[in-house]
């Protein structure tokens, strides 16, 4: 304990230098934590799961996928064709259609901030199938109960909208507001909406949900008014999501869908959500590679050099002190560990402080890093970042202080005092 106290006092000896070194460490730990958070999130999103798998059915040869809505029913059951085929339970699937529009009628007057882009789907599937909302009852039972009421209200309100809090703010609307949206992608299908609630804070803060039957009604209305089908009437289904219990079931469902002639025009493909996201992220592969293997290590090396520089200066200034400690009986190993201890204490503390502050600020104040990519509007700092921060700071401190500590260890008493004499 006394030894630790001595280490602590040595750090506080030159406070300005210690604070500057700690600040440098904190900034670099912050950057590494942010980079790793994004990479970790994407890594988890693209890692294949063995159980409780989500499969995505999309058009095989076209992106974005535009399937006829007649695919929705049979695909939602897993595309069974023959006796004995696996049927996905109704609760374990969802369909996505996308409706985009603006509050402003005149296309020339439109401001992107007044646009919205809605997932058209069955309301109750929002809580059972959407990532990060399907586990809300476990994560936050109180928020789940509140959101359930919002879903129920949407089920009672055909033109109801559930909006993420950031999007609601951008639209300058509140719950209960009614407004008309002039469609951008479904030309001629302008719809009246009423905001019935807000999505729980998190991943969908910028998102909007509407009822799919309301969009289908709009397509029917268009046909009645114009005596012809809307150009997108047979291309309205974007994705179908299926939840299957395990890999063998996924393989079976995938096979029964892809070999079913009912889904041949247009042809569809089935992939796990992980591989689907992975394929989407393939375009960013070089960027992620650079972040993981160039940026993060470069920051780490820089951090080690900053610490090494500060500790080296300190060791040079304290050669006499180390010589005195040796005279008093301190062994070379004691001196080595004292210097390493000072660097480690500084690095570990700064790392923990930085990661903790980053976690709190990003998750609680900023509510995520806005890095919209692959349907992920924001990234959050995982709780693991606390030990990442400690590890990044500690390892950098250790690496940076090894040489200075060895130099302190090898201080020769007679040489130091000869110079003084």
């Amino acid at each position, binding site marked *: 304990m006394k030894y630790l106290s001595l280490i602590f006092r040595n750090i506080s000896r030159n406070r300005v230098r210690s604070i500057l070194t700690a600040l440098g460490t904190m900034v670099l730990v912050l950057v590494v934590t942010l980079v790793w958070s994004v990479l970790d999130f994407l890594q988890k999103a693209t890692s294949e799961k063995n159980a409780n798998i989500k499969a995505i059915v999309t058009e095989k040869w076209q992106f974005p996928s535009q399937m006829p809505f007649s695919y929705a029913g049979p695909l939602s059951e897993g595309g069974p064709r023959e006796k004995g085929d696996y049927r996905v339970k109704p609760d374990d699937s969802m369909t996505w259609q996308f409706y985009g529009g603006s509050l402003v009628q005149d296309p020339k007057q439109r401001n992107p901030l007044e646009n919205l882009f809605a997932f058209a789907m069955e309301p109750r599937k929002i809580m059972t199938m959407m990532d990060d909302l399907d586990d809300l009852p476990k994560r936050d039972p109180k928020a789940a109960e509140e959101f359930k009421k919002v879903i129920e209200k949407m089920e009672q309100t055909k033109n109801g909208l559930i909006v993420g809090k950031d999007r609601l703010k951008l639209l300058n609307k509140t719950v209960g507001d009614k407004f008309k949206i002039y469609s951008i992608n479904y030309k001629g299908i302008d719809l009246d909406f009423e905001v019935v609630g807000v999505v729980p804070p998190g991943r969908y803060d910028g998102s909007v949900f509407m009822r799919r039957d309301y969009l289908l009604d709009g397509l029917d209305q268009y046909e009645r008014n114009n005596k012809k089908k809307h150009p997108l009437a047979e291309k309205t289904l974007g994705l179908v999501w299926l939840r299957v219990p395990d890999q063998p079931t996924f393989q079976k469902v995938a096979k029964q869908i892809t070999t079913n002639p009912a889904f041949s025009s247009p042809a569809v493909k089935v992939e796990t959500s992980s591989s689907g996201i992975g394929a989407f992220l393939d375009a960013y592969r070089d960027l992620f590679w650079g972040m993981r293997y160039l940026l993060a290590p470069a920051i780490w090396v820089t951090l080690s050099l900053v610490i090494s520089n500060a500790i080296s200066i300190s060791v040079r200034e304290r050669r006499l002190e180390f010589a005195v400690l040796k005279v008093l*009986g301190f062994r070379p190993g004691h001196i080595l560990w004292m210097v390493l201890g000072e660097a480690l204490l500084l690095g570990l503390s700064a790392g923990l402080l930085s990661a903790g502050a980053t976690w709190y600020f990003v998750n609680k104040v900023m509510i995520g890093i806005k890095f919209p990519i692959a349907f992920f509007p924001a990234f959050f700092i995982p709780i693991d970042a606390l030990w990442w921060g400690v590890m990044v700071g500690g390892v950098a401190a250790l690496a940076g202080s090894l040489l200075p500590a060895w130099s302190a260890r090898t201080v020769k008493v007679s040489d130091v*005092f000869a110079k003084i004499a």
Partner: protein
Amino acid sequence: MSKALSVEVRDVHKFFTRGGERLDVLNGLSLDVPQQEFLALMGPSGSGKTTLLNLIAGLDTPSSGEIQVAGAVISQMSEAALATWRTRNIGFVFQFYHLLPVLSALENVELPLLLLPLSAKQRREQALNALDIVGLADRVHHRPGQLSGGQQQRVGIARAIVTDPAIIVADEPTGDLDAKSAEAILELLVQLKSSLGKSIVMVTHDPRAAQRADRTLHLDKGRLVESGMLEHA
């Protein structure tokens, strides 16, 4: 009956190599220091007195010859072994005190005790006792910067005796002090010898300081050139 020896130096040579040139600092020097003797080493700069002091204190090893201190042959010990040995057997007093500025007087004196298997309470008691011996019981929480030169040297002496070593080596302990403070420090060293039974080896340039020792040895070019026993009442 002659006293047992604290220090035995036998035919010690020490040379350094600087810029490819060999510098012989000690040339076959032999020396005995009996227990409870206060020995002064004098000589011109470069005569080898500090080198001899470092060898006796186990801060350096001889090029050849044997040194036995407090019953242990230290001339063949490794650096780590010498460090451990020094903790219990040698108290070192520096000319410029060399106290750690971030620690109080009490904590500076406690430093060598950190290396011994003692409880915090035992460490504190021993350190307070040492500070009491040197007359600084009322300055235990002062930092070095808050103490005069003489007081800092007393803390240095307390640090040297806190592990109860058999031998105290002092390298010009009065060299940085005014005459009054120097006299007080010398008086303290004499008391340590007589009341606590310590052997003291002191390097000094000051003849008045040497007069307080039991015996003075003169070194020149790495050899003892003269010795005389001074009896004190």
